[in-house]
């Protein structure tokens, strides 16, 4: 099975790309897949997306236009589009 993962903001920078296709073995919840990708890639992406080795609660992950949380057990389906959005802040100082 294959899904597309899209990265926004600092996640794009940390992943080194905006979008990638990921193969996975079902059954797999979306948050678990994102956490697995971050663990495998390590480095800045892991630092940005993981907390205690799980998906950080401050990282917004969506399947299609629906938010999924680290506790959400909704399983991925072939062709799903996952969006990864870390929190960002303002533009002054």
């Amino acid at each position, binding site marked *: 099975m294959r899904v597309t993962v899209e990265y926004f*903001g*600092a996640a794009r920078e940390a992943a080194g790309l905006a979008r990638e296709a990921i193969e996975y073995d079902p059954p797999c919840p979306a948050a678990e897949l994102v956490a697995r990708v971050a663990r495998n890639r390590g480095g800045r992406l892991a630092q940005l997306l993981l907390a205690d080795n799980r998906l950080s609660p401050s990282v917004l992950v969506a399947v299609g236009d629906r938010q999924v949380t680290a506790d959400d057990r909704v399983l991925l389906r072939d062709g799903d589009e996952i*969006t990864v959005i870390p929190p960002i802040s303002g*533009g002054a100082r």
Partner: protein
Amino acid sequence: MSGRDEPLSDEERATYEWQMWVPGIGEEGQRRLKAATVLVSRVGGLGGLAAYELAAAGVGRLILAHAGTVKPGDLNRQLLMTHAALGSSRVECAANRLRELNPRVEVVAVPENISPANADRLVGMSDVVVCCAPRFDERFLMNAECVRQGKPMVDCAMYELTGQVTTIHPGRTACLACRVSEAPATWKRQFPVFGAVSGAVGCLGAMEAIKLITGIGEPLYDRLLTFDLLDMRFRVVRVGKRMDCPTCGSPVRP
């Protein structure tokens, strides 16, 4: 809105008629804008543009909160700041630029960032809040105060070529703390930014505030707009209220 509902003068009608032609605005919508008070937290790359658009649109009173003096590094994006004002108060410079743009607008310049000492009073004076602060602690504080007082807050953020906008209506929508529990571990005080990116976010935030005040359209309630101008990807993600949110969740019964 909190201000007095005064009729528009002929001169005001002439100034705002192009936006009064927008369906749903008209004389009534413009009067609502005139009667409204909007608090803009920090008037840099995001908030400066939000405040500029709100002043141009004829919001009656703008409260600007921003500490510090104008630095050279502000000038690539903080369009309310000028070279001539280097070294002098940011918020005074911003207020003067808004008064030049629209002398009808009452501008309240507060030379402080949002803090526990002023959040209660400043939010209390406002009908709508536009939060553009760079520090997460300031954003969390503003969010908590808006939740406490039931005031709608437009949350604007950017990083590099990415922007985010969402609109929080306490009691109706998720709040900032439902979505973000803490600042990311990788967060840094300095960040890459083009003025065209922060300005785009600020303009979108201004439009959300205008919609809240006039009642037109659908604000970004429980929806986060995120975009990346590097490749022009725009997404809207539905976000949910967390029942156990420490800021807006149901209180635990003893």
